């Protein structure tokens, strides 16, 4: 539950969302990611740490460099987070439709 909340806090930040978009197309080192932002390098490092902690990013050692890439499984979970809300309305509207169809045949 805590971890879940952290994921949403993680993506609530615009810089972190920008980082996710950046690494979506290719694995990148911390330095390469930081070069895309005006913010100080330690700030970007902190963002990378948060994104890694909540498993949105994964690290991969390649020689002396650490590359960051998206964890597609976690991203999929976020994409699905709206689904319970949609399902709630879909259930309500299905009930509405059933009730009104009966209503119609009564008339």
């Amino acid at each position, binding site marked *: 539950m805590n971890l879940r909340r952290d994921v949403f806090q993680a993506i609530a930040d*615009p810089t972190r969302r920008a980082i996710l978009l950046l690494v979506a197309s290719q694995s990148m080192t911390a330095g390469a990611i930081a070069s895309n932002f005006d913010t100080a390098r330690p700030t970007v490092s902190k963002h990378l740490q948060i994104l890694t902690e909540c498993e949105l990013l994964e690290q991969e050692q390649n020689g002396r460099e650490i590359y960051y890439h998206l964890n597609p499984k976690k991203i999929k979970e976020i994409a699905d*987070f709206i689904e319970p*809300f949609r399902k709630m309305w*879909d259930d309500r*509207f299905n*009930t*509405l439709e059933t*009730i*009104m169809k009966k209503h*119609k045949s009564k008339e």
Partner: protein
Amino acid sequence: MERKTKISAVDGKQELVITREFDLPLELLFKAYVEPDIVEQWMGTKVLKLENKKHGSWQFETKNAQGHVVFQANGVIHEFIPSQKITRTFEMEGTPFGVQLEFLEFEELTDNTSKLTMHIVYRSVAIRDQILQLPFAQGINMAHNRLQNIVSELSHDKAK
């Protein structure tokens, strides 16, 4: 299978749009929104007040089996055009979310089908995102409670 109810929630915006097409003539769809006894059936809540007119107000309340109030919501109606449009506010009492503005538009597609577009505006992006996550959080809680019941039943059996 195509999803009948669609939700559009653009990242970073404090609004969302719910659309749904119904196998119902427009008049029947609209009726489901104005007749209190019908609203009660599909919303699963008691309708204390529903004044379908400009400057009218509405009030819903749900009690659990023990008679405790578990859900209360209210609002005012700003615009009411039969079979076309309802503009209203919605506020869930006892929550930190505050009031939201809802634009409901009803459209005829064919003689027997109609469409509802519900445009909801929240006070902030953060509040919208929290509300979107509510059913998700409740789902987790329900699963958790069920699990706890099973676990306590098991330990109870062991104690016997």
